[in-house]
C-alpha cells in the first residue's frame, strides 16, 4: 500500500516536490523514522530535513509529534512551523 507524502512552504521548495506517492519500507514505523529514511533519498531531501527538529508533521490532516506511529496513514505532510493568521 502506498502512502501520499506532501511538502509545504520551504520544505517543498527544498525537496522540489509538492506531493508524491511512496511505498514506505517495512522498518519505518514512526514519523521520526520516516524522516531519517527520507534524508537518504538524495541531497535535496537531506537538505530539506537537515533541521528535522523544526519540521512539523501531520498524518491524515491531524498534527502529530515525531514519535507518532504511522500506522495505516494514507497522507503524511511535512512543513515548517505555521505562520498563518
Amino acid at each position: 500500500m502506498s502512502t501520499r507524502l506532501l511538502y509545504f512552504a520551504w520544505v517543498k521548495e527544498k525537496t522540489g516536490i509538492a506531493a508524491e506517492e511512496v511505498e514506505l519500507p517495512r522498518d519505518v514505523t514512526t514519523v521520526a523514522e520516516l524522516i531519517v529514511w527520507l534524508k537518504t533519498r538524495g541531497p535535496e531531501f537531506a537538505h530539506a530535513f537537515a533541521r528535522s527538529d523544526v519540521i512539523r508533521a501531520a498524518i491524515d490532516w491531524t498534527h502529530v509529534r515525531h514519535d507518532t506511529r504511522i500506522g495505516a496513514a494514507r497522507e503524511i505532510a511535512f512543513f515548517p512551523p505555521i505562520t498563518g493568521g
Partner: protein
Amino acid sequence: MIRVQQEDFDIGTEVARLRTGRSDIGAIVAFVGVVRNRAGAVEEMTLEHYPGMTEAELQRIEAEASSRWPLQASLIVHRYGKLRPNDNIMLVVTASEHREAAFRAAEFLIDYLKTRAPFWKCESGRQGSRWVEADVRDDASTARWDDAKDAAE
C-alpha cells in the same frame, strides 16, 4: 462557520449575515488581520496552505471555542494566495449574549489558528523573498488557554 478563500471579504457583510434574524445577540467582536508593510519592505505576501487539513483544523478550532463559551454564532474566514500591504488576511467574528464570552472566544480562535491552521507566509520585496519565521509568542499565546483549562478543571 469557516471559509478558506482567495477572494477578499467584506467585514460589514459578514457581520450582517451572522446576526440576521436573531435577537439574542448582545455582543459582537470582529477581528481583522491585515498585511502590514514593515518598514516599507514588503511588496507582496503569498499565503500557502494545506487544502483539506486547513478546513479540518479550522472546524476543530471553532468547535472547541463553541464548547468553551456560550456563542450564538462564530465565523472564521482565512485567505490564501497573493496579498499586498493593507489587504485583509483573515476575519474572526464571534457573537454572544455578553461581551466577555465574545472577546475571549475571538482571542482563543485567533491564538489557536495561528499555531494550528496550516498556513505559511512568504514575503517578497526588493530584497527578494523569504518565508516568515514563526513567532514564539504565538505558541505562548496558545498555551495560555491550556493553562486556563487546567485551572478550571
